[in-house]
C-alpha cells in the first residue's frame, strides 16, 4: 500500500498507524504522529487505520528558536 511519509511516497503493509510506524523503522522512537493533518496521540495509534494514500507525518524533537 502506498502512503506519503513526511512528504515522500512509501510502500508499506500496515493496517494501523502503529503497524505503519513499525514497518517504517520508528519502533521505539520518540515521535509524534499525524495522519492527513490530524494529530494522532500515541495511545490511539493502534486503533488508527491507515489506507492507501494517507499522509503520515512523523515528527521528533529538533533545534528551535
Amino acid at each position: 500500500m502506498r502512503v506519503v511519509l513526511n512528504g515522500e511516497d512509501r510502500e508499506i503493509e500496515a493496517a494501523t498507524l502503529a503497524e505503519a510506524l513499525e514497518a517504517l523503522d520508528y519502533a521505539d522512537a520518540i515521535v509524534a504522529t499525524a495522519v492527513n493533518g490530524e494529530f494522532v496521540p500515541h495511545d490511539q495509534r493502534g486503533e488508527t487505520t491507515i489506507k492507501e494514500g494517507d499522509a503520515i507525518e512523523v515528527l521528533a524533537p529538533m533545534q528551535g528558536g
Partner: protein
Amino acid sequence: MSARTFYGQALANRLLLGTAQYPSPAILADAVKQSAVDMVTVSLRRESGAQRAGQAFWQLIKELGVSVLPNTAGCHTVKEAVTTAHMAREVFGTKSIKLEVIGEDDTLQPDVFGLVEAARILTDDGFEVWPYTTQDLIVGGKLLDAGCEVLMPWGAPIGSGQGLNDVFGLRAMRAHFPDVPLVVDAGLGLPSHASQAMELGYDAVLLNTAVAKAGDPVAMAIAFADATRAGQAAHQAGPMEVRDMAEPSTPVMGKAFLL
C-alpha cells in the same frame, strides 16, 4: 529579582535560549551549561526512521536538565499551530508552548488574528501559551483574555539582530501591563540589547541567532546572561536621573585654590 513568575515558574536566569544553528551539539550544550540558562526553546521536525536525528537531539537536551519550551515555528495557520502544539505536548511532555503564527515571511511578523484565535483554543485545551506577538496593546489584552499569562513582543525581526526597533512601543506595553510577565522575543543581536530590554522593566529575553551565530557561541551566551542579569538588576536598583547638562561627580566644595 522580579517577583513575577512564568506560569508559576520562577526563572532564576532571565535569559531564554534557542537551540538552533549552533556549530555543533557540543557547543550548544556548552553554551547552555556555561550561561546557566533555565529554559531553552525547541521545535518539532520530520524524523527519518533511519537517521533518527531527533532522538539524539532530544537525548542531548534532556541531559542538560533545563525546561523546554517547544515552539510552533513556521506555522502560518491556526490549525497548523494547534496541531503542532498537541504533537509537542505529547513528545516533550510539557504543556508549555511558544506560540508562533507567522503572518509575513520577510519580517516573520506574527499574524495577530491567528495568534489570538490559536491562543484561545490552546489555553482552553490546558496549554500554557507563550505567545510571540507585537507591541500591540489591544492584541496583548486579547491574549490575556484568552488565558495567556505571559506576553512575548518582538524586539525586531527574528534573526535580524537589530535590537529594539520600537522602544516607545515596548515602554508603553510595560506601562500598560504592569503585572504581566513580559519577554522580549527575537531580534536581539548584542548583549546591550538584552540589558536595555531588562532596564525597560521586561522580565526576560529570548534569543537564539545572536548566540548561535556568534564567532564564539559559548562566550556570547555567557555575555548575554551577564547582560540580562545586569539590566534586570539595574531596573530594580533604580537608575539615576538623566540630566540635560553636566554635574560634577567630584565635590566642588573644598577644591584648592592653586592659581
